[in-house]
């Protein structure tokens, strides 16, 4: 027997979030609500003496399936709003009537069945479930392995996008750059001094003259660069600072 309090808790935690499927506007809110439904169903499974299935429900549905839904929502765009214009006249009422009728039909049929409840049920502990899965149903488990592999392959094939242009190698990119008249070697980097290592100081060429093109154009426009010449004759002072003896120079 199941505690009535537990049943009503499960009923509220599943039915009310499930109604958001019909009434909520944003798909992300619906996905979050369905996560709650799945957790409620896991509670129901545990209450119905199926603890292993409850754990699988949480791991597979809330952990994997609904997170996959959220990822796909992110890929196709979360803010796509649905048009609520009716394209088939009266579709909304016909659909609602059919759904309510289906639920009423199932409930009325089940309530007429002569059902008895076994008072000593087998509890779906992992060991018990495993002995069935890998005993009587081992062939089904093998087939399910194939199903899962083909599903993964199918997802890869369906989301594969063929390349429109051949891939350009680094050598081709470089050849195109040379053909366009660019300098084939790297430009000097700014600020490569021992004393002043900043972006605003130009690099020095081997003769000690500043290389103007090594400083960012933006800094030049703002007037924030410094002239490299003050570092030109600076080596002696620098060495003294470092504690070198005068006669070493």
């Amino acid at each position: 027997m199941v505690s009535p309090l537990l049943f009503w808790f499960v009923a509220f935690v599943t039915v009310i979030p499930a109604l958001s499927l019909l009434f909520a506007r944003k798909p992300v809110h619906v996905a979050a609500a369905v996560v709650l439904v799945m957790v409620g169903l896991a509670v129901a499974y545990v209450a119905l003496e199926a603890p292993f299935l409850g754990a699988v429900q949480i791991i597979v549905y809330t952990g994997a399936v609904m997170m996959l839904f959220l990822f796909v929502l992110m890929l196709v765009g979360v803010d796509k709003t649905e048009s609520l214009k009716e394209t088939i006249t009266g579709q909304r009422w016909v659909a609602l009537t059919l759904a309510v009728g289906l639920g009423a039909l199932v409930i009325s049929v089940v309530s007429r069945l002569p059902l008895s409840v076994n008072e000593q049920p087998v509890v779906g502990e992992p060991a018990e479930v495993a002995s069935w899965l890998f005993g009587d149903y081992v062939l089904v488990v093998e087939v399910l392995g194939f199903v899962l592999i083909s599903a993964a392959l199918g997802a890869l094939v369906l989301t594969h996008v063929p390349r429109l242009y051949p891939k350009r190698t680094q050598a081709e990119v470089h050849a195109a750059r040379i053909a366009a008249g660019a300098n084939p070697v790297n430009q000097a980097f700014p600020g490569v001094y021992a004393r002043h290592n900043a972006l605003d100081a130009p690099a020095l060429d081997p003769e000690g003259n500043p290389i103007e093109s090594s400083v960012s154009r933006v800094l030049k426009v703002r007037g924030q660069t410094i002239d490299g010449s003050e570092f030109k004759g600076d080596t002696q002072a620098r060495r003294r600072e470092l504690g070198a003896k005068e006669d070493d120079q």
Partner: protein
Amino acid sequence: MSPVNFVYLAAVLFAIGAATVLLRRNAIMAFMGVELMLNAANLTLVAFSRMVGGIEGQIMAFFVMVVAAAEVVVGLAIIIAVSRARQSISLDEPSELKG
């Protein structure tokens, strides 16, 4: 309280899922309705398994879960492929052919 109440709960959830599939235009929403219907069927299996007292119903529910996981993967891949091809995942696009 008898476990048969869980069958009634499953019927309600199944009806909500069916209404979602019939009413919503967004393909992902309709797909979540399908998931809800699958879960309602699972709840029925587990509830009847509890009433009978055996464990076979739970094994079947487990198989349904595995197949549903595979189905979700392929279904969402199809939705992504469609959204790439048409920039829309509305299930109502064919009605625009009427002009």
